[in-house]
C-alpha cells in the first residue's frame, strides 16, 4: 500500500462524509415523505462508497463486492417496504406532508 492509497482514502472519506451531510440535510428539511426516502438512498450511496473504498484500500475487493451486492439487495427491499408505507399513508391522508404526520405525540 502506498501513500497514494492513503490520500485516496482520505479524499474519498471526505466526499462520503459530505454526501452523508447532504443526505441528512435532505432528511431533516424535507416535507415530502418521498424526498425523505431519496435522502435515505443518498445516504446509502455514501455508505456504499465507503465500503468499496474500504475494500480497495485494504486489498479485499472481493469481500467488499460481496458486501455491496448484499447491501443493494437489502436496500431494494427496504425501499419497496418504505414505498408501501408511503402509499399507505397517502391513501389515508391524500397528502405526503411530513409535518402533518403528527398525530403521535407525547
Amino acid at each position, binding site marked *: 500500500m502506498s501513500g497514494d492509497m492513503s490520500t485516496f482514502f482520505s479524499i474519498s472519506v471526505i466526499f462520503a462524509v459530505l454526501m452523508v451531510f447532504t443526505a441528512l440535510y435532505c432528511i431533516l428539511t424535507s*416535507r415530502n415523505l418521498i424526498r425523505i426516502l431519496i435522502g435515505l438512498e*443518498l445516504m446509502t450511496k455514501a455508505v456504499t462508497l465507503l465500503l468499496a473504498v474500504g*475494500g480497495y484500500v485494504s486489498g479485499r475487493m*472481493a*469481500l467488499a463486492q*460481496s458486501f455491496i451486492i448484499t447491501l443493494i439487495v437489502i436496500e431494494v427491499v427496504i*425501499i419497496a*417496504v418504505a414505498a408501501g408505507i408511503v402509499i399507505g399513508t*397517502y391513501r389515508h391522508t391524500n397528502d405526503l406532508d411530513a409535518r402533518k404526520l403528527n398525530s403521535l405525540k407525547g
Partner: protein
Amino acid sequence: MTFDFNMMNIFLLALFLAAGVWTVLTSRLLISAIGLAVTSIMLTILLFLMKAPLAGVFELSVCAGLITVVFISTISLTKPVEKSEVLQLKMKRLKRFVFLPLLLFLAAWVLFAKPLHLTNPAQVPVEQTTLQHVLWFARRFDLIGQILIILTGVFGVIVLFKTKTGQAEKQDNER
C-alpha cells in the same frame, strides 16, 4: 499513472457529490428521483475504477434502474404537486438554504479537525480470492440472510399493497 488515477477519482467523486446535491436541491420530485439515478451512475463508474465490476453492474441495474422505477411509480401513484405550490415550496426551500453551508462547514470541520489518514496501512495482507469464491463460500451465511430478507420483502408487498381501500377508509371514519 497514479496521479491520473487520483485526479480521475477526485473528479468523479466531485461529480458524485454534485449529483447528490442537485438531487437534494431540485424542487421537483421527479427530477429529484432522476438525480438519484445519476448519482448511482456516478457511483457505478467509481466502482468500476476501483475494480469492482460486479458490484458496479448491480449498482447500475438495481439502484439506477429498479429503485428509480420504484420511486417514479410511487411519485406517479401519489398526488402530483401543482405549479403554484411548487413556487411556494421553492420560496420556503430558499429560506432553508441558510443551513446548508452551515452543515457543510460543520462537516468540513469534523473532517479536518483530526486528519483521517491511516497510520499503519501495511498491516493487512492482500487476499487473493475471487468474488465468486467469497460470495459463495465465505459469505454463505449472508446469502441465507438475503433469502430471508427477500421473503420478508415479498410479504411486505403482500401486506402493504393490498388494496383494501374500503377497509382503510372505514378505519379512518371510526377515528
